[in-house]
């Protein structure tokens, strides 16, 4: 679809929409570099530091990749934060320091993610419950079950498993490579597979997609399963990084809302059907760049939070304000 529309003469406004996340990313990077040079802190201007900036938001990145799928089908997933907590706890409890249990633990967590996504998708597409409410309910259920059984760090992961978070090729951590490979896979699915184009079709106009012969329910369910699987993987990563899982780590990181914010900043329209993975990755990097800029400037932690909220709104307003489409 993009080839056709690109070759025909497009209105400028849509072009802008398309590249807005890249513009924001370049602006954030330039600001960072200018600030570093202006403050004379050139020690931050190294490849090591770049990798560190990217590596800071791997959990958010993995979650946001999944969230992109959910938002592209005009749905949303608020249950990712609880699912991250649940996956981290299940990972560390099942492994419990035993390297032999690594494979069963990962399988169990992925199964958990798939089941949660399946239920989310079924409730949304078959029972026609509003996605916000359906996934919020799912989130409360997961959190409730989790806090019933655990109230602190539980279990621990073996040293072999911590390689996932701490191992590196040269200076690039495995987990960072993993995130980009995952993003590449997601891009491939969205760009080159039938499922991917169905996602855009269903997100753009569900009824038209149904009339065109697409099984919309299956697409919505598929998107939610992918979203939950990504959240489960993010939980596995967090368990590996923290060496144990706790029932609050997902909620503490506000991964549900932050992942949505990142996806939207990346240019994916909350109403579905428009956007992509690389925008999301740009959004993730913008988020970590903002944090780094604040750190370099030495902004007070509380002021930082205020500015962060404002930046989220301004970044989205940056291109939403020009759009003539109605918003929600």
């Amino acid at each position, binding site marked *: 679809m993009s080839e056709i529309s690109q070759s025909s003469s497009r209105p400028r406004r849509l072009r802008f929409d398309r590249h807005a996340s890249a513009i924001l990313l370049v602006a954030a990077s330039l600001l960072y570099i200018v600030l570093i040079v202006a403050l004379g802190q050139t020690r931050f201007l190294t490849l090591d530091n770049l990798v560190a900036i990217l590596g800071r938001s791997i959990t958010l990145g993995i979650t946001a990749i999944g969230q992109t799928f959910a938002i592209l089908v*005009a*749905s*949303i997933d*608020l249950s990712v934060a609880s699912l991250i907590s649940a996956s981290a706890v299940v990972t560390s409890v099942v492994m419990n320091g035993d390297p032999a249990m690594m494979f069963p633990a990962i399988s169990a967590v992925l199964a958990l993610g798939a089941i949660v996504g399946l239920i989310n998708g079924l409730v949304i597409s078959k029972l*026609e419950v*509003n*996605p*916000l*409410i359906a996934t*919020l309910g799912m989130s409360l259920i997961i959190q409730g079950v989790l806090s019933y059984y655990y109230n602190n760090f539980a279990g621990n992961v073996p040293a072999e498993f911590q390689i996932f978070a701490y191992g590196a090729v040269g200076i690039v951590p495995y987990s960072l490579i993993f995130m980009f490979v995952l993003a590449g896979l997601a891009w491939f699915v969205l760009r080159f597979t039938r499922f991917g184009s169905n996602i855009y079709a269903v*997100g*753009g*106009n*569900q*009824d*038209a997609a*149904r*009339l065109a012969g697409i099984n919309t329910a299956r697409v919505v369910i598929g998107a939610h399963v992918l979203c939950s699987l990504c959240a489960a993987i993010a939980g596995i990563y967090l368990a590996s990084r923290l060496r144990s899982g706790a029932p*609050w780590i997902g*909620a*503490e990181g506000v991964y549900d*809302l932050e992942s*949505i*914010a990142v996806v*939207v900043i990346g240019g994916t*329209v*909350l*109403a*579905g*059907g*428009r956007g992509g993975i690389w925008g999301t990755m740009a959004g993730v990097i913008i988020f970590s760049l903002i944090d780094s800029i604040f750190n370099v400037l030495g902004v*007070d*932690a*509380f*002021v*930082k*939070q*205020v*500015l*962060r*909220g*404002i*930046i*989220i*709104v301004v970044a*989205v*307003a940056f291109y*939403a*304000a020009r*759009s*003539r*489409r*109605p*918003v*929600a």
Partner: protein
Amino acid sequence: MTQDVLSQGAEPRRRLPQINPVYILVVVLILAIVVMNPAFGEPTGYMNYLKRVAALAILSGGALYVIISGGFDLSVGSTMTLTVIGSSMLASNDPNSTYWIIPLMLGIGVVIGVINGLVVSYLKVPSLIATLGMMISLNGVAFMWSGGAPRGYLPDTFRFFGRYNIADLPVISILPIAVICLVVFGAILWWRQPAGGAPCRRSGGTHSHLRLRRLFAHRSFGGCDPRRPGRRFGQYRLGFRIAGHHGRGDRGRTIARWARLGARHHRWRPGARSHLHPAQPPGTGAAGPVGGAGTHSHRCRGFRHLSAATRRPMSAGARPPGCPSQQGLTISRGRIP
């Protein structure tokens, strides 16, 4: 919108039951609770229950306005945090301060609501993102204001609204002030609802009309009724739980308990995670968490509209603003797409 026309032809329209299932659910839940815990059937039991749910009930009454207009407000939790912190810091145990603190906090609510509404209406930021940004910012402001640690103390004149019961009444025996506030604000919300809701749902509503109404809804959510009592009760409730509940009101102890509360939650945030809660009762037709409260009839009634209206944020933005009247029609029918 075109897809509505298409879908109408494609599938038979489903008739919703005449009685909203939420009413049945509420009755069943109340009966179940009474069977399990007979004390709940006593006037004291349900009055105390109403007292406890007052904050959430009023909060969700406000959320109804925003949700009907097709938006969503995540910032209510942090608004509560901000006003709890703000009023306890400003009050500093001066009984006379209540009279200007409550209007001031209402004013903060108005300002926050207006900003949310303007950002959504004119900058066209999706309300989810706009209010998410507001939520994060307000938490930061609350931290800045308090310096990260709870300070101040609330005088009894302030806590009166959430804590005191009128005792020795016939039939109901006690009547908490909180329940009176709940009824008053519920009535105001119910009375104001046509102004905020109907134009959004009216079939002939134009898009700009809808937009204006959305601004209005955000404003009224932020300012007029819901948040203020939410705050006030939230604050009050917090005070009650932490100081009153343990039978000691002295300052040091209260702060210690607040600090402990903070330790338990890892961060001191009274309104933490409540950003999503008020959305639930309207979303579910006010079933579970606030069942039985008298002011929810409008929320229940609005349920059908809500189901459609909350669907809008997901589906409306993708399409050109072609046929707003269709959109209005859909919302008015409350058809779950």
